[in-house]
């Protein structure tokens, strides 16, 4: 086989691609938090997100 390294590299990349597509991987990295209580349903205004960075150019308003 010509170019064994390149072909293997390409094949692995394609396999990775297929796996990623099957598992639904995307580049986005939302903050994942466990065990949010049900009380958020009743009082959505009291919910405080767990990330600290700013997204986009919007302002993050905390508190009241």
């Amino acid at each position, binding site marked *: 086989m*010509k*170019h064994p390294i*390149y*072909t293997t*590299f*390409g094949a692995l*990349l*394609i396999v990775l*691609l*297929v796996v*990623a*597509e*099957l*598992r*639904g*991987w*995307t*580049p*986005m*990295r*939302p*903050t*994942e*938090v*466990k*065990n*949010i*209580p*049900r009380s*958020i*349903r009743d009082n*959505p*205004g*009291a*919910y405080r*997100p*767990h*990330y600290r960075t700013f*997204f*986009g*150019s*919007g*302002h*993050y*308003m905390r*508190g*009241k």
Partner: protein
Amino acid sequence: MSAPAVASLTCPQCGAAIELRTLDQALSVVCGSCGSILDARDPNLHVLQEFKARQKFEPQIPLGTRGTLKGEKWEAVGYQVRGIVVDGTTYCWDEYLLFNPYKGFRYLTQYDGHWNDVQVIKAAPDEHTSGGRPYILLHGETFKHFQTATAETYFVLGEFPWQVRVGDTAVTRDFVAPPRMLSEERTPEETTWSLGTYMPAAQIWSAFGLPGKPPHARGVYANQPDAYMPLAGSMAKRYLLFVAVIIALILLRLVTASRETVFATNSAFFRPGAPADSLAFVTPSFTVSGRTANLEVTTEAQVDNGWAYFEYALVNEATGTTYEFGREVSYYYGRDSDGNWSEGSRRDRAVLPSVPAGQYFLRVLPEAEVPTSFLEYRIVVRRDVPTLTPYLFCLALLALPPILVALRAWGMESARWKESDYAPSSDDDDDE
């Protein structure tokens, strides 16, 4: 009966012993001691030229050494140093004359560590011109004109089947089709064509059993075989194979992605300026079913010269696992001296990775700064949507190796033709 391989002669200038290896084929022979060039056909060996070379050179293949090339035995019987002058600089190369009584003569040339195996060919090949550059078609190969120069003989040693003199000149034209080179040599008396094949120095060293390692070749020689061009070509073909596979995968994905809408608010209003916490709300619960797949959250807001920011938390009702993310939408437009302009987009698309099946709801906190007193927006959540990014990323990554090799090939060709008559003229002419 066995015929002697050499004839022993005496130099008329200095009396040193001379061995003639090619016997009746030699026309000139150089005395190894005093450097006089003698007429080998004359029984008295009259002097054709006294030693007048400006310096002495030492052949890398000592005369008399025998080597095996292509299964045939050859003996080095003559050595010449010739050179050309280009832009005031002299470039010298070695020429070795090899002899085998059953095969005749052959040549080896050496320049800057690059070796060539050369044979005289009988007929003058047909020459053509393309775009002002001459070329020759021979044996199915296209030989491109590389250089025309006047070669001068600077030094000779050994014997030759022609009358050689230091100071002899010939107009040479080289045509290349790597690894081969066709050379024409023109003197007023005759024109000779020869065909050379590039030979790695290591092969010469092992053929002649020379000691040590051959000196490193510098730069790229006129007919040095292309190491990278064929590689670039075949890698490009391999890349196209990958492209075909990836396109097939894209098509497959486009067909099999379910794009199922699991939740949508068709149109919601909100009044900007109200206290923040009071604006937060949760959506009704919706089902995400099927295998773990991506989840797309599209936010569309009718912002006109303003922005809107949505703080999302996607909560799995059963496990409590929550995905927090914030998305912004902004759109500005106007008119200036160049015409209409616009910036931003009223639509944002976020694709969450690997969301397992389950019951979910969204907690949303919208925020906006818009000129109007209300904002219309909609949120659509879909699962298992196709995205192009990973495929494009793979295509880009896989393109790198062939591109790198192609750059290498291009670099080598550049270096090769830099030495030719067709070198692109540089503004600053430095000598490398």
